[in-house]
């Protein structure tokens, strides 16, 4: 009860564009998009920009005449980072709001909570969360825009091996993303010949992880440490890590690719490495990179509109909205089954996360090439060459 904050029952852009009146009555019907995001809670620095981006672009699309002459009506609910709330809001979107599609699930947990409901209801669903379990095995109605944690782990291990590290300590959050990341880290380690020498966990809402860090500090022969978590928790880990003077290099996954992470961790973030979509280092990308144009433009729009720095999470939401609206255009309407098929046939879409080529067996459609190792230097992201 006390947590049920469906704060942002924001009905943006419900003002029907007058121009659309001339179209057929049917086509004048708004396209209803629902979204469940973690605008508050431990994952708020992921969910908050996602919400802002959806609102911004829905507004722009509507001002430009909508999608195929139909305006978009967006409903956003905040799950506060809790899976059970994500499930009940999904129910509300499906049952009460009658949406044509759902974008979101900021976190893996929220996404997985919504999956059985959307699968049953048969509504296209594009998740903004990272874990590989979302799209593997493939689920009929479920898609996602960010890279998977497995790709992130592969990228991290690749970088570690390049620096000559083979003995890694894991520190994972007990959240869905954290657990999935840990599973991938353990599995992939065997494949690429890494040795996991310590395996600790922490809670997403812990105020102090120094006990775990102390244990890792004491573990034999740790050459590098990988943290599997998202949002604010990893910032806490990073500070305790530096505080206790651990010298092994620190890696995170792509769940912290936001300036907010650097702000929270402060000086402690210096030297932290993680894989991220090209968006956060758009200016540093070579001109030949297909992403550069999209990423630069999106960054400009975002930073002008919100006067704050862009994060990859904003990009995930943008990509999801673009993939969906594009599919609606190709499907010639919001018929759910047709739109689903159209999403599955997305080919060559250049987004902030990379070039998307979906198929019946791949509901994400991203390759490793669009994923970059970045390092925090002087409070900013720097592309690792």
């Amino acid at each position, binding site marked *: 009860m*006390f947590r049920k904050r469906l704060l942002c029952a924001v009905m943006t852009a419900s003002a029907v564009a007058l121009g659309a009146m001339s179209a057929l009555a049917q086509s004048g019907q708004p396209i209803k998009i629902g979204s469940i995001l973690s605008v*508050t*809670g431990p994952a*708020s*620095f992921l969910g*908050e920009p996602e919400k802002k981006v959806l609102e911004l672009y829905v507004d722009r699309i509507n001002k430009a005449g909508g999608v195929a002459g139909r305006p978009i009506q967006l409903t956003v609910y905040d799950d506060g980072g809790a899976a059970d709330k994500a499930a009940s809001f999904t129910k509300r979107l499906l049952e009460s709001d009658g949406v044509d599609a759902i974008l979101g699930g900021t976190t893996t947990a929220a996404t997985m909570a919504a999956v059985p409901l959307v699968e049953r209801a048969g509504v296209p669903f594009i998740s903004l969360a990272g874990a590989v379990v979302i799209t593997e095995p493939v689920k009929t109605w479920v898609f996602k825009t960010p890279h998977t944690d497995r790709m992130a782990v592969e990228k991290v291990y690749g970088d570690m091996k390049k620096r000559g590290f083979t003995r890694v300590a894991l520190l994972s959050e*007990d959240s869905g993303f954290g657990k999935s990341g840990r599973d991938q880290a353990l599995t992939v380690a065997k494949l690429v010949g890494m040795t996991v020498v310590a395996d*600790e*966990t*922490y*809670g997403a*809402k*812990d*105020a*102090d*992880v*120094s*006990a*775990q860090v*102390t*244990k890792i500090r*004491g573990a034999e022969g740790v050459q590098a440490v990988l943290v599997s978590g998202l949002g*604010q928790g990893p*910032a*806490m880990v990073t500070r305790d890590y*530096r*505080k*206790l*003077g651990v010298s092994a290099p620190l890696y995170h996954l792509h769940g912290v690719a936001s300036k*907010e992470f650097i*702000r*929270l961790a*402060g*000086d402690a973030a210096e030297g932290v490495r993680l894989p991220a979509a090209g968006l956060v280092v758009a200016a540093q990308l070579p001109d030949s990179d297909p992403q550069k144009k999209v990423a630069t433009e999106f960054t400009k729009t975002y930073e002008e509109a919100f006067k704050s720095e862009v994060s990859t999470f904003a990009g995930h939401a943008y990509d999801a909205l673009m993939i969906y609206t594009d599919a609606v255009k190709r499907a010639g309407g919001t018929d759910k089954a047709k739109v689903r098929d159209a999403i599955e046939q997305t080919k060559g879409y250049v987004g902030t996360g990379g070039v998307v080529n979906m198929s019946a067996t791949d509901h994400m459609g991203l390759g490793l090439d669009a994923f970059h190792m970045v390092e925090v230097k002087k409070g900013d992201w720097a592309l690792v060459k």
Partner: protein
Amino acid sequence: MAEFLQYLVTGVTIGSIYALAALGFAIVYNASHVINFAQGEFIMIGGMATATLTAAGVPLPLAILAGIAGAMLVGVLIAKFAVERARNASVVTLIIITIGASIFLRGLAEVVWGKEFHRLDSFSGNAPLMLGGAVVTTQSLWVLGVTAALILATGLFFNRTMAGKAMLATSHNRLAAQLVGVNVRHVVLAAFALSAALGAMGGAVVAPITYSYTEMGIMLGLKGFAAAALGGLGNGVGAVAGGLIVGIAESLSAGYISSAYKDAVAFVIIVAVLVFMPGGLFGRAGTERV
């Protein structure tokens, strides 16, 4: 050994905050026989005000003072408009009232300060000290020093000043205190103000360690309550001891048993102790008068 020391340092640091919260519970309980479930929110107010005000450029001491003043004002308002008016209500009703107050305060904090985490830098640099292989941050020293000073000051206040003695007398015998001219209502207000000040100061010094956010007070408050009950409700020395016991036990079990069960430690201890000692470790087991 280095690990053990490290856990000890961590435990004493967080235990100090529990001790301050527990002392706040004890003071309020003595004056009014109310367990103030909004005690944790005083910590939150202290932490949030200090973090946000310093971020806005206010000098640190001023920011802390503002936080304390704010918390004291809130404490007095709760006492005056909620607790005093419901004096004769049942234990459960009073619990719900103070929980209502804490929900309200968290809601207010969300509106004023937002829901995101706020960072507060250590009071004096990040260079850690080494103590027999254990790292001691300067902020830990701040926490310990400030806690010790506050506990000492509270002790002196109750034993050396007229106002303190009046409050103590009220807790022993409300009617008798009233008869010798103590204004019992003022005592209740003062108790809330004092416990709010202790909590807010604790929140300010712990903020650089834990971050400040609107929900930071929930667990700190509950563990403070556990610590207060552990020491025997209304027993100031017991509350401080209870806080340190909970903090150290928690940190040691996080290190040697399971970090995931860290938060359960305080409650396992309190349940176990209450089963065998229904009045807490230092409480008197009262006999019911019929």
